[in-house]
């Protein structure tokens, strides 16, 4: 434990280095802007920031992206509460009580509750993250390829089972993503696969190309097809934050803690991100909360639960990313991409080889959360002003950043073509209701899944029962099966009920 504290102290020292500090502030402000803009999702924002990190060292790059990730879970709260415009899907639950409280003439107080919730959720979750990461990493050092395959399988299955909409569509999207990752020269046999003799395809398809195209270009094309309809912003009387009194906060301390822990746990589960955390905790309040009957009428519980869980999910999501190298959400997938671009493979080894970097990132999360609340408290008016920007202007910048992002991956025009193609795929996926997250996560985790599966098969003479016979992989595979079966059963039940 002392080891962890001393490392964290060194991390704070690292954070105060000018470059890291400047990028932390920049990441915080950009994250808030991304959170406010309805046309720019959190993942897209982090994707677009990626090209800027190419010439940076790995630490400042990750510090900036992590700051954006955490603040993105807070920025959209302003517009949800004041204008009923959720900047992110995360903030939809805030429309129910946050906006209702604002309509009752207390917008400043609603914003105050959000600030407290984000601060508490973020900081407590960061403490849990720091405490758990090193032991988890030590434990993960004992893992072999069957365990890695089982964990990746669990991650991929969770993405499918926790998503909304058709599970079959999510599976198809996932299989296609995994398939994209097989393009190029096979690492075991050196055989070209689906390369069609093209040099760029021989090197494989970079997951960043898929990500930038499907998330960035695809989303802009979808919105262009809707005519870039900008939502008119209503005028509000008060645009400041008023912090609730200590007595009021103390009365909700159990709820603060419950939502934070739940949000953190949901963050750890691959595939479940801030949005699910926010909806689930709101649902839990609706079912078990003391004032569940008043939920939706503008009570603090309806604001604190989703906001604290959303921000807490970030700390949770960082644990599998750093300790196992398995991203659980779109944003952590981009952060994994940034690590890989800088030649670092996250996983248990990173706590030994790059301990200073890991703890600087941890420390930056604490500082970023505090900074986010300070900026959010004082700069709400200029932040909300961003909503006045016409969508066509914002979108053209997004498109061009996507182009530069694609061009800079391998300095190849072919990547630009591939990105545009994946943008069109992203658009059609949206039209036919195929989720994009499984496609992207499949592309990212595909090589790890294939390598760990094939290595296991070679090591254990094609005995696939090994995945069930080894205790840890057996448990994880069992969890995977449960994660698959439960939503299926629920779906059958709802069909039966309808009949």
């Amino acid at each position: 434990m002392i080891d962890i504290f001393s490392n964290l102290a060194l991390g704070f020292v690292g954070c105060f280095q000018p470059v890291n500090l400047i990028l932390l502030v920049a990441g915080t402000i950009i994250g808030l802007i991304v959170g406010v803009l309805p046309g720019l999702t959190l993942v897209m924002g982090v994707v677009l920031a990626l090209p800027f990190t190419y010439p940076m060292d790995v630490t400042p790059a990750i510090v900036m992206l992590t700051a954006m990730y955490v603040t993105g879970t807070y920025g959209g709260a302003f517009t949800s509460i004041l204008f009923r415009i959720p900047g992110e899907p995360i903030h939809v639950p805030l429309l129910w009580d946050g906006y209702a409280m604002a309509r009752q003439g207390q917008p400043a107080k609603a914003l105050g509750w959000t600030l407290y919730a984000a601060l508490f959720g973020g900081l407590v979750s960061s403490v849990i993250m720091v405490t758990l990461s090193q032991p988890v990493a030590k434990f993960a050092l004992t893992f072999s390829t069957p365990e890695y395959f089982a964990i990746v399988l669990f991650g991929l299955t969770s993405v499918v089972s926790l998503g909304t909409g058709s599970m079959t569509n999510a599976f198809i999207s996932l299989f296609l993503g995994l398939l994209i990752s097989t393009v190029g020269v096979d690492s075991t046999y050196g055989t070209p696969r689906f390369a069609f003799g093209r040099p760029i395809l021989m090197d494989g398809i970079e997951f960043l190309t898929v990500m930038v195209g499907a998330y960035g270009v695809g989303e802009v094309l979808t919105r262009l097809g809707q005519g870039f309809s900008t939502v008119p912003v209503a005028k509000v009387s008060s645009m400041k934050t008023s912090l609730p009194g200590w007595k009021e906060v103390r009365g909700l301390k159990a709820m603060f803690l419950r939502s934070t822990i739940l949000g953190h746990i949901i963050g750890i589960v691959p595939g479940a991100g801030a949005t699910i955390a926010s909806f689930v905790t709101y649902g839990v309040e609706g079912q078990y909360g003391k004032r569940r009957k008043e939920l939706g009428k503008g009570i603090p519980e309806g604001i604190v639960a989703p906001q604290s869980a959303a921000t807490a999910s970030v700390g949770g999501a960082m644990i599998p990313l750093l300790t196992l190298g398995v991203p659980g959400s779109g944003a952590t997938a981009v952060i994994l991409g940034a690590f890989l671009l800088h030649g670092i493979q996250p996983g248990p080894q990173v706590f030994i080889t790059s301990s200073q970097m890991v703890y600087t990132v941890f420390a930056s999360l604490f500082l970023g959360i505090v900074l986010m609340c300070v900026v959010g408290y004082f700069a709400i008016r200029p932040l909300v002003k961003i909503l006045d920007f016409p969508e066509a202007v914002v979108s053209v910048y997004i498109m061009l950043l996507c182009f530069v992002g694609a061009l800079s991956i391998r300095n190849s025009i072919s990547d630009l073509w591939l990105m545009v193609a994946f943008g069109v795929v992203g658009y059609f996926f949206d039209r036919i209701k195929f989720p994009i997250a499984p496609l992207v996560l499949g592309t990212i985790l595909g090589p790890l899944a294939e390598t760990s599966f094939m290595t296991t098969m070679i090591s254990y003479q094609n005995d696939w029962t090994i995945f069930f016979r080894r205790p840890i992989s057996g448990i994880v595979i069992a969890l995977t099966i449960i994660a698959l079966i439960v939503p299926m059963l629920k779906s059958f039940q709802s069909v039966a009920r309808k009949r």
Partner: protein
Amino acid sequence: MAVEKIKKIVPYIIILLVAAYFYHLAGKFRFSAKPGHLGPDFWPKLLLALTMVACLYEMIKTVFFKKIVIKEKASAGEEPKKEAAEKSYPWLLVIGTLLTVGYAYFVTTLGFVLSTFLYFFLFMIVGRYRKIWAIVANSMIGTLVLVVIFMKLVYVSLPLGKEPFSAVTFFVLGILGIK
């Protein structure tokens, strides 16, 4: 009803056919097989087989078991609101996509500076933004900002273009003091 069902299964048919074609391609991978080892075709074939099974499942489900509910027209009061929210602009989408493909096609010839300026300008117009001075200013400032960031601060090797368009790139780079 039958038409609705066919519309629903079209994407699955396309994916199924593409997956079948790729499965066929995977069978043609050339490699020297190691006895007792799975080949490089195993993993892609497994994924393609799973994709085809998923497509078939969805097609059978849609054709034989799904009831297609045809949306009835909303009440008179709700209709305009709903229509406004669901309004689509397919031509904007087509032009925007062509513009994007055009950017990828022309960027090596025109260079990053010129093609970015044109893309800025045209995309905002396609996006139904009509303040012409704001469009011109945004296009110029936006292009210069991107050039400064990505060609001066964050060095990314962006296309300079071919003669005579490269002259424009070098002129702008010269003004910005980028060597």
